């Protein structure tokens, strides 16, 4: 093949630019343009508004172009629809059958009718379940045993005889191995859930009698108060079943009447047909003949809503009757919960009937002395339950009743209620529930009165710190009169600080922190923090109170956004020191950082903040170890980066650099932070250049060199090869822009020298991918930078280009890959550009090769030689490609 002399074409960039420059042709409104949204608009109106324009079917109105994806679907997209649907379903338990869901949705709708400000039962439910737990084994009682026999038996097919046999067997087992039959709390809940399922099954298989039996058996369980600590949770579980039953009955009768067309929501008795009425009546007759009081009461309450089918005023008549019926329940706890259930059902079905709610409460007050009766005492002694603990069992029920009463109740009624409670010897339990259930505004306005009442309470029975806790909760959401605030805080804290048990103390103090933060300055908050520290430090009591302490921090952070104030509280950092368990401490630090990033708007150089934040960040950073998850690391790094970004020393660049040095030492384990630091320093250098308008003085020149040095020694500590490469390139460019030629040289040389280390495949998002494309991208941008790099006087011509190409040649590329040749091909334009008289671009104040060599023929011939070699290589590759093709064809 005849050797061809290759040489680069001379170019005049300016002329080319002018020639190629597109004429800025304005696109007319009517013209077609692919980037314009194609919209068919009503041309008539258009013509009317803009006469003479050649408007056609396509218009260029500035409205947002329709997203083809969203326009495909009309309405909401299916995914979000599902999400929305499931969101409404999930809050309650996971069990779901179609009828249950239907009923639930319906019920939710009705709860809304009460008003969104009424805290629904579903919220309380979880709270109670979480609060009233027991580690004690729930002994399975006879009820449950027989109940189970009935529930699992196939309807009433199993004869009475067999059933009693089964019971006897159960009894035998209980007698011999008691522990085996004892159920843990979870087992108990599961068992109840099983019953719930079998209720639904029985219902759907048309075994109405069996369903009723299950419900009766379940409600019978409520009369059993063994393991009394669990009673509230038991109540919740069992009333779930009752609710299910009530819904099933209601839905069934409802469908019976909706034969030709569904009943309207606000149907009247006239709309209901006779068959439905008869069925409904039968249910009520059947229930009226239940022998035991408690099941009769609960089951009738459960289907209270069905009264709507029978009679307009039926609910109105039934509620007072049921209320009176509860008087027959001897056990005060059982009675209180029965009242709570009745109130709940009453609120759901007929929220306007306030009278029976009040009646319930007065009856409750009337029977209050039962709590201290002999019977109850004996029971408590038997179960080894203390009186205060026993009293707290009442609080969910009483709170619920009071909440129902207080809901949208006139002020006068609340005052009356309070008076009645007062008359009853100022009972602490009642007071507590009053404070919890009544509107916070109501409580807050009378906060001083309440404090007086709390003081008057007798200490026995119900601990005062709980009372102050409830008061604090109300005050946290409503403001007491301005003048009283300080006295309230003083009075309350006087009591709180005397609470001996650290656990009780912190529970109460945590609540009051919010009130303090809302209304007072850092001085008071600081005092409270000091008090908490004093209480929690002895015997390392804080170890058991991390959740509460965390919540203290959270509350302080919600109200105090000014971090200079926050950190100037002398007790804040000592408070943080109480978090000694690593995971908790990191958690706390993270929450502080999140608030900082969110609320710190201005850059800061405040030494107090910086010190404290550095300390916090260091804590987070130090928690990283070999076991830390990748995600965890990432989130920590993000938080620290957020902090670093907020730090600025203004014009004091050196201080900033030394901060970066310090930060590098502190956060050496988190690579993203180091990367951010390098970027910060690079930015610093460029900022310096901007301030000096490109002309560095001796001092600034030294400074930017220091910056370069910082980057140069930081980069090698990164493990990711590509971040190293790109940072080398970037730092090299920054150094060049700041006229630090030798530094730039060093950066680029370092980049070239680590090229062989690039692995052939890297993991991207957990998958192994070939690194080839990344490498090619990098090399291309590297080549572009090389154009302006002046040659080093001590090394040969085009030292870096040669170096790079050598590396490329030695690199072990993937087999059968064109990558190497691609690099060669992209190197050709570089070489061609280098041989021009004036370069396409240059860096101010840096002389590129064009000036250094001034178009020296020797230099040009070097370039040409290089080009020739490259082209030779490329042609060789093409030949092998051709040969390969022939070979494949022959085969």
């Amino acid at each position, binding site marked *: 093949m005849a050797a061809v002399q290759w040489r680069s074409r001379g170019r005049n960039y300016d002329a080319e630019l002018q020639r190629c420059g597109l004429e800025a042709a304005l696109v007319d409104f009517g013209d077609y343009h692919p980037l314009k949204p194609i919209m068919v608009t009503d041309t008539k109106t258009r013509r009317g508004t803009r006469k003479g324009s050649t408007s056609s079917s396509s218009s260029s109105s500035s409205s947002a172009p329709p997203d083809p994806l969203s326009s495909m679907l009309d309405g909401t997209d299916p995914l979000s629809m599902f999400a929305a649907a499931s969101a409404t379903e999930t809050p309650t338990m996971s069990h779901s059958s179609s009828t249950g869901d239907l009923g639930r949705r319906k019920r939710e709708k009705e709860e809304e009718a009460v008003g969104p400000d009424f805290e629904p039962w579903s919220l309380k439910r979880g709270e109670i379940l979480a609060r009233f737990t027991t580690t004690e084994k729930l002994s399975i009682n006879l009820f449950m045993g027989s109940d189970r026999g009935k529930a699992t038996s196939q309807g009433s097919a199993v004869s009475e005889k067999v059933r009693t046999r089964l019971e006897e067997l159960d009894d035998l087992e209980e007698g011999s191995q008691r522990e085996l039959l004892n159920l843990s709390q979870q087992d108990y809940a599961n068992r109840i859930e099983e019953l719930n399922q079998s209720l639904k099954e029985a219902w759907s298989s048309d075994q109405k009698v069996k369903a009723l039996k299950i419900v009766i058996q379940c409600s019978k369980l409520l*009369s059993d108060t063994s393991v009394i600590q669990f009673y509230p949770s038991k109540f919740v579980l069992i009333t779930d079943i009752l609710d299910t039953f009530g819904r099933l009955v209601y839905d069934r009768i409802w469908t019976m009447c909706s034969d030709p067309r569904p009943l309207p929501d606000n149907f009247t008795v006239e709309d209901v*047909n*006779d*068959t439905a*009425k*008869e069925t409904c*009546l039968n249910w*009520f*007759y059947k229930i*009226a*003949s*239940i*022998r*035991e*009081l*408690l099941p*009769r009461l609960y089951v009738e309450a459960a289907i209270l809503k069905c009264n709507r089918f029978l009679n307009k005023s039926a609910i109105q008549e039934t509620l007072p*009757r049921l209320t*009176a*019926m509860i*008087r*027959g*329940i*001897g*056990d005060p706890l*059982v009675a209180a919960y029965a009242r709570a259930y009745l109130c709940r059902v009453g609120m759901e079905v007929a929220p306007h009937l306030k009278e029976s709610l009040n009646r319930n409460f007065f009856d409750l007050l*009337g*029977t209050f*002395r*039962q709590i201290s*009766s*002999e*019977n109850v005492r004996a029971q408590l002694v038997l179960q080894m339950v203390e009186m205060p603990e026993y009293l707290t069992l009442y609080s969910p029920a009483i709170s619920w009743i009071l909440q129902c009463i207080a809901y949208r109740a006139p002020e006068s009624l609340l005052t009356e209620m309070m008076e009645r409670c007062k008359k009853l010897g100022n009972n602490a339990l009642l007071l507590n529930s009053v404070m919890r259930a009544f509107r916070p505004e109501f409580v807050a306005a009378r906060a001083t009165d309440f404090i007086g009442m709390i003081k008057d309470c007798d200490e026995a029975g119900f601990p005062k710190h709980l009372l102050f806790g409830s008061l604090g909760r109300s005050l946290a959401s409503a403001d007491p009169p301005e003048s009283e605030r300080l006295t309230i805080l003083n009075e309350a804290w006087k009591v709180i600080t005397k609470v001996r048990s650290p656990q009780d103390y912190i529970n109460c103090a945590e609540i009051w922190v919010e009130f303090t933060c809302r209304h007072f300055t850092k001085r008071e908050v600081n005092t409270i923090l000091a008090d908490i520290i004093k209480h929690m430090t002895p015997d390392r009591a804080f170890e058991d109170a991390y959740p509460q302490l965390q919540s203290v921090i959270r509350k302080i952070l919600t109200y105090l956004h000014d971090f200079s104030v926050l950190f100037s509280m002398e007790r804040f950092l000592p408070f943080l020191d109480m978090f000694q368990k690593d995971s908790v401490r990191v958690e706390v630090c993270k929450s502080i950082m999140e608030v900082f990033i969110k609320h710190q708007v201005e850059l800061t150089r405040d030494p107090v903040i910086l010190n404290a934040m550095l300390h916090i960040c260091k804590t987070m950073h130090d928690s990283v170890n070999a076991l830390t998850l990748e995600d965890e690391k990432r989130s920590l790094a993000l938080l620290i980066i957020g902090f670093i970004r907020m730090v600025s020393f203004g014009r004091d660049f050196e201080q900033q650099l030394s901060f970066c040095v310090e930060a590098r030492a502190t956060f050496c384990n988190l690579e993203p932070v180091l990367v951010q630091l390098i970027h910060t320093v690079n930015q610093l250098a460029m900022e310096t250049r901007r301030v000096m308008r490109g002309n560095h003085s001796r001092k600034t020149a030294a400074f930017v060199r220091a910056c370069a040095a910082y980057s140069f020694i930081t980069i090698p500590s990164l493990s990711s090869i590509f971040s190293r490469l790109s940072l080398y390139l970037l730092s090299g460019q920054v150094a060049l822009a700041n006229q630090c030629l030798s530094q730039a040289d060093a950066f680029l040389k370092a980049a070239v020298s680590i090229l062989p280390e690039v692995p052939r495949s890297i993991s991207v998002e957990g998958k192994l991918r070939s690194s080839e494309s990344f490498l090619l991208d990098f090399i291309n941008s590297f080549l572009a930078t090389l154009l302006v790099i002046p040659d080093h006087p001590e090394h040969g011509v085009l030292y870096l280009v040669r170096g790079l190409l050598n590396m490329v040649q030695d690199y072990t590329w993937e087999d059968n890959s064109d990558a190497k040749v691609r690099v060669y091909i992209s190197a050709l334009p570089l070489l061609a550009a280098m041989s021009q008289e004036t370069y396409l671009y240059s860096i101010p104040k840096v002389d590129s090769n064009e000036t250094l060599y001034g178009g020296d023929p020797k230099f040009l011939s070097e370039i040409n030689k290089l080009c020739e070699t490259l082209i030779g290589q490329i042609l060789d590759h093409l030949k092998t490609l051709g040969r390969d093709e022939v070979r494949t064809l022959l085969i």
Partner: protein
Amino acid sequence: MSVTLDIRLKRANKVYREGETVAGVILLICKEALQHHGISLSMEGVVNLQLSSKSVGVFEAFYNSVKPIQLISSNIEVAKAGKIPGGKTEIPFEFPLHTKGNKVLYETYHGVFVNIQYSLRCDMKRSLLAKDLSRSCEFIVHCQPQKSKVIPTPVNFTITPDTLQSREKNSLPKFLIRGHLDATNCVISLPLTGEVVVENSDVPIKSIELQLVRVETCGCAEGYARDATEIQNIQIAEGDVCHGLAIPIYMIFPRLFTCPTLETTNFKVGGVI
């Protein structure tokens, strides 16, 4: 070939009073046309008496069972022998509820020894090869509501160990229970109401129950047999209830098992202590 024969009454609750008309349809569902030898419908009201083995001997009870007394009986032919087309056929009917002579239409009642039952029975005669079909359906008769208004006469009661007819009076603990019933003569369709108050009791109360008792009297050769049986027992208080607090008494009469006129009902409040 399957045929279903059914009687559907117009009223869903199946309750009728004297003088009213029992109306409904006979429903026939068959796939193909059906040959029959006539369909007839009869209405019957019967009192069945059964002697208790307690008051007379076992054998007497068995032999001497009193003949059923017929209260009402009528018969109509719904359709003459012929063919019924396939598909769903509804044949409407009506019976006036009138007594003959001086007989009284008693209320429907299901007791232990006395049963008063009203029923409709539909028979379809068919050819030799196919079985005759028959279907019966009970309906309920209630008395006309009382016209004269009953003035409720409340009654108070007190229970102490002394008032009890018990042998071991002395061994009983002391207690005092007061209460009142709103009426002694109750309207059957309305619940029994009242209140009971435990004034004091030395021993904690376990349960207070309300028992509804019926007394059935049967006339027979050797005079009368009188038996009291429990109809329903309802707990109105459970556990040691609050002293001095009025607990409501409330009971709905189970309609099928109680009836107002023929027998006297007797209520007893039993406190189990």
